[in-house]
């Protein structure tokens, strides 16, 4: 694995070096119709999440047993669930939860992963060995199963889902940050800073970190879809968020028993997840395509 990472790193370094390209990168990404669609979906998602209280027609937690399992109608656009809660409002509020999980996970995983990777890559030697063995350890395990174990060890709550997925995800970012740093430390501007007597923390913060961030952000945007799916999977098997939280995975799990009779209960949250993940995937795909033709596909692996 390390070999692919190193080759990727060199390539990525090449791509990231030219910051001026960033703006044109965005422009070129959006020129691709598929990425444009992705961008629109994500934009809508953020909008919906931000304006949830304005869009939702009812309190997502308000039960009304008398109106349980009502089919979609003008009063309930997406119908109601087993407790008579308005599925439309729950799906709308669910966007907040999914976005929160995705963003928090990305932040936590980066906050752990980036420093570990940068320090390991910059100082090499013992530190690097230890850091890489630790990431090996975490990466010797599938993400969902590791997250399951951690979520079980803590308690099945939304916060713990974030912690579990972050702990399972950070090693990949540490690896990426490390390989980026390996390339950057040989760069002229870093060597120049060193020659001028800049302290290592200063070099790391001022010169290395910015170079590491943009590939990391790209990588994270590629992973967003996967993070949302993992969280939903945890919710589905009962390790994640718990009812009555309007988390999409939990909603599908609750609705799966009604799939033959009240299709709307699981279908709408299912579509919501699929659309959201699709949006992230389309966007990520576009970014990757534009970055470097030779890079296509390999980062995500």
């Amino acid at each position: 694995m390390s070999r692919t990472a190193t080759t990727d790193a060199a390539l990525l370094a090449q791509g990231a070096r030219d910051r001026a390209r960033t703006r044109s990168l965005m422009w070129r990404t959006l020129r691709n119709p598929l990425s444009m669609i992705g961008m629109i979906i994500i934009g809508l998602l953020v909008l919906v999440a931000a304006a949830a209280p304005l869009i939702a027609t009812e309190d997502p937690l308000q039960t009304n047993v008398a109106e349980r399992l009502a089919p979609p109608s003008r009063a309930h656009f997406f119908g109601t669930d087993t407790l008579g809660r308005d599925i439309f409002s729950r799906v709308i509020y669910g966007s907040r939860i999914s976005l929160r999980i995705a963003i928090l996970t990305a932040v936590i995983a980066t906050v752990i992963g980036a420093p570990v990777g940068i320090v390991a890559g910059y100082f090499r030697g013992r530190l690097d060995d230890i850091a890489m063995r630790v990431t090996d350890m975490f990466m010797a395990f599938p993400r969902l199963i590791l997250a399951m174990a951690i979520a079980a060890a803590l308690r099945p709550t939304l916060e713990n889902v974030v912690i579990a997925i972050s702990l399972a995800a950070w090693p990949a970012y540490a690896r990426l940050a490390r390989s980026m740093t390996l390339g950057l430390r040989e760069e002229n501007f870093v060597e120049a800073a060193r020659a001028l007597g800049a302290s290592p923390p200063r070099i790391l913060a001022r010169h290395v970190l910015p170079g590491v961030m943009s590939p990391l952000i790209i990588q994270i945007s590629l992973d967003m879809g996967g993070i949302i799916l993992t969280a939903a999977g945890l919710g589905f098997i009962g390790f994640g968020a718990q009812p009555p939280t309007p988390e999409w995975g939990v909603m599908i799990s609750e609705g799966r028993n009604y799939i033959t009779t009240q299709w709307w209960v699981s279908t709408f949250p299912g579509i919501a997840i699929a659309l959201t993940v699709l949006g992230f995937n389309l966007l990520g795909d576009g970014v990757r395509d534009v970055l470097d033709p030779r890079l296509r596909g390999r980062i995500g692996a």
Partner: protein
Amino acid sequence: MWSYLVRRLLLASVAIAGVLVIVFFLSHVIPGDPVGAILGPQAPQDLIDDLRQRYGLDRPLYEQFVRFVERLAHGDLGTSLATKRPVIRDLIEFFPATIELATASILLGVVVGVSVGVISAVTHGRWIDHAVRFFSLIGLSMPVFWLGLILLYIFYFKFGLLPGPGQLDVFLTRPPFVTGMVLVDSLIARDFDTFGNAIHHLWLPAIVLGSHALVGIARITRASMLEVLGLDYIKVARAKGLAERTVVFKHALRNALLPIITVIGIYYGGLLEGAVLTETVFSWPGLGRYATSAILSQDFAAIMGVTILIALIFSLANLVVDLAYGILNPKIRYE
């Protein structure tokens, strides 16, 4: 090469040992009462105390760890609290079903994924490419458990094209246990009815489990093919007037294989992840479900057994990928 292999194996064992220590302490630190969980809320206290003593769960944590390591050194994974059987026996019983499903999924993923990827690459930039990519992205965006339920509904219930949950029709007898894989065992027993039935049962879960790998393989194939198709020698080949089929398959695909193989290896290890969800939806008697229930009931011995097995397979898959990479690409030398 050999010293590289030895080093990699050493590193892998260090990683696995680390995983074991982490999982052991993690699973034992969880506040909870596995014995109470298994006996249920109504069991009398003395029965619980008795069982806890029988399984050594009343001992201090470090003592339990030492005992675990000692047993492990003798190849003994301990006894599962939930099934009351040696963990090794449970693994032997449940793992083949997962291997069978994962292998079928990856085969499906490779055959369909590479085809789709080639189509997409050959029609690069035109509507068919966009359509294929769009639909494959939709596939990648569906939660597997939801996809499973929907496919079950459509193919099994609505149209009756494929059989329902389970590994075999219930009144078919499983062939004698040789490998534990129904497909292989039924062939060994020359029981072709069972073989056919098992194949039919395999389709839906394999499609569901393989869907993400399929899309991943399709994308990497497309990317890799595009890269190769843009190279000079392909242009030369085309200019020489070679048939498109020859150019695509003989020249381009062969050279595009390297990253494809890498990604196949990675996905194969990763299928264990999807197996947890797929096996739940399809009542598949595999390792994924065993792992889930072990974690839920804090069945320590079973958790550790599954951990060891999964870590081994994952590390092995990574090693094989790296080696294959080196063999296929002589430019890479092992330090």
